């Protein structure tokens, strides 16, 4: 029995080791191909660029943890971006504008959460619908035109450009949010509730957890985080753009799922590594002026490799038990 226990644990560690090896291999390949890749500046750059996807993906992690999917966050983040830009154009203080944007994101999350958690509508369909509405509503501020009035003078761009002890503000925001999320999801009482619901909703209910409320909260967090991500994009681009969040969907899901595969549950650290992994590849390729389609191709292939690598197990070196494992999974 003791021995069996050891074996199991090392299976999980083995996955993490394989992924780390893959991660480092990619890192050092780029470091060798380009002398600037491993520089401090560039690593900060990677972190800064990943902050947008990483923050949105962090919110998505909560929804995936309760075993739902949210396909609205990336569209509702467009609404938040436009709301913020519109308020800035109206001359409001940037902090107020950012808060308003985040609140708006939370509100869209709340709508999705109520639809899914309270009214039990199927998650993928209803969030696509709500997301479409949010995206359409984003056009109301300017008929879809860029909003840039007051942008340079309002100081909103420092949300992206400012540095604190040499570290870009988005990176600090990201790390702070990740720390917070880690404490909440992996260390706190509430995190337990998220995971319990994800693993067995009914049993969580019978354990006295307010299932619906927690599901709604997960969507609210997801909407809010996506909005935060959109704030940073908007600050980086220096204008409000209705499409600012549209490219978030796939990278966010990739990040969460890579993390899920490596750590065997949707986890804060896993999501972070997943996000950094793909961002690092994109950064490496743009440094080398490689066309986007080639880097996209490599990112897609690495996504497969990363998840495949998590399927290898120390114990499955012997083929027989691999089959058994597969069968056991199939039988569940």
């Amino acid at each position, binding site marked *: 029995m003791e021995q069996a226990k050891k074996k199991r644990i090392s299976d999980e560690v083995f996955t993490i080791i394989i992924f780390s090896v893959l991660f480092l291999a990619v890192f050092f390949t780029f470091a060798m191909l*380009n002398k*600037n890749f491993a*520089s401090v*500046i*560039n690593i900060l*750059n990677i972190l*800064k*660029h990943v902050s947008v*996807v990483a923050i949105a993906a962090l919110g998505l992690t909560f929804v995936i943890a309760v075993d739902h999917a949210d396909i609205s966050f990336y569209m509702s983040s467009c609404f938040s971006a436009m709301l913020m830009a519109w308020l800035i154009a109206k001359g409001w203080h940037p902090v107020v504008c950012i808060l308003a944007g985040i609140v708006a994101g939370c509100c869209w999350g709340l709508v999705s959460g109520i639809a899914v958690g309270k009214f039990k509508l199927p998650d993928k369909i209803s969030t696509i619908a709500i997301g479409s509405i949010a995206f359409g509503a984003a056009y109301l501020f300017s*008929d*879809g*035109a*860029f909003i*840039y009035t007051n942008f*340079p003078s309002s100081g909103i*761009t420092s949300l*992206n*450009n400012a540095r604190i002890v040499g570290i870009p503000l988005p990176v600090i925001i990201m790390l702070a949010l990740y720390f917070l999320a880690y404490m909440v999801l992996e260390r706190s009482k509430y995190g337990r509730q998220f995971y319990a619901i994800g693993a067995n909703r009914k049993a969580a209910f019978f354990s006295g957890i307010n299932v619906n409320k927690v599901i709604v909260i997960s969507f609210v967090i997801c909407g809010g985080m996506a909005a935060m991500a959109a704030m940073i*994009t908007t600050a*980086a*681009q*220096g*204008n409000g*753009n*209705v*499409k*600012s969040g*549209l*490219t978030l969907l*796939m*990278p966010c899901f990739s990040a969460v799922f890579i993390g899920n595969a490596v750590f065997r549950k949707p986890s804060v650290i896993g999501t972070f590594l997943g996000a950094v992994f*793909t961002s690092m590849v*994109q*950064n490496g390729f*743009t*440094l*080398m*002026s490689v*066309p*986007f*389609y080639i*880097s*996209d191709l490599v990112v897609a292939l690495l996504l497969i490799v990363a998840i495949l690598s998590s399927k290898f197990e120390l114990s499955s070196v012997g083929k027989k038990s691999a089959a058994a494992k597969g069968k056991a999974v199939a039988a569940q």
Partner: protein
Amino acid sequence: SSSAPSSQAPAPSDAPSTSAPADSDPADDSQAPADTAAPGKKAAKDLNVAVSLGWLENESGQRQKYTYETEFAKYGITNYQIVDANYDPKKQSEQIEAFIKSKPDVLFVTASDPVGIAEAVKHACDAGIPVFCDDALIPGAAAVSTVMFDNYKGGMWTMKQLVTKLGGKGKIAMIDLPSNEAWAERSHGAEFVLKQYPEIEVVQRWSWDSTGAVTPRMAIDNMLTACPNVGDLDAIWCAWDGAVFEGLEACQAAGRNEILFTGSDGGEHCFEVMKANPNFIATCGESIYTMASLCVEYAVKYMNGEAVPRIVMVPSIGITNEMIVNTPVPEGWKNIGDYDIPGNYDVLGWDPTL
């Protein structure tokens, strides 16, 4: 995020020397052979007009819409529909096909992608609907009039500005916009100039994918990292102004205040940015208002039984930073962005040569 200009032109070397509209009243300048059969006359105010815009999302799209609305009002046209395709040629094709069935008297088109919507525009022409193409030529479609500008030349001019400023020597980066054939021509024009300057080295080059995960801002951040020292990178040529805006932000954030930029588009926002950033040395001012207003004017004339030109190549204006900085906003203008209204170049003393 996409601030993207548009248009399509035949190769510039053998571009037909078209009627140059502009100076005062462009309508007087239409000397091109007007081999168009005039339909039954119809007064402007009775027209049923459809406008299919390729996008609305950035300043140029909004300017186009503004022009149509303003000009329609001028002519008393009240029965019109304006839709936009959000950069999606498939959607625009469907919209044009839908318009065909609603049988408008006139159809205006700005192309999200000239190639992608060509078939639908052909159908409109075949269905006997007078089509007026704004901003870009639609290959193969027998439009009544096409009013456009020369992307290739614009690309040449901005690159020339950059190269001159660098003294014919230095390291530059290029940001391309290949998703639309017309926009890609700007890069071809820029490359044409580079052939004459062997000492200009293109050290970084990147194309933007509007549906991808990497924004121009990120790409330029990375370029600055790849070229970390002053002298590693002297200038960035951008295929459109939006990339310049993001690039200036990136340079400012990285403390790289020596890097020069050129773009293409022009307009109110662009000029504001130019004013604030001497490093934004030049852009190709596309005369968007002129193009759209000419389209409307030709349509009205055509419907009135008059002859109109088939292709008009509206000149763009090479706009340098000095021009913006040194030009006060004339009285009665909303802002300097109104430069593209016919007749206004002269007021500013700008020379539409591109």
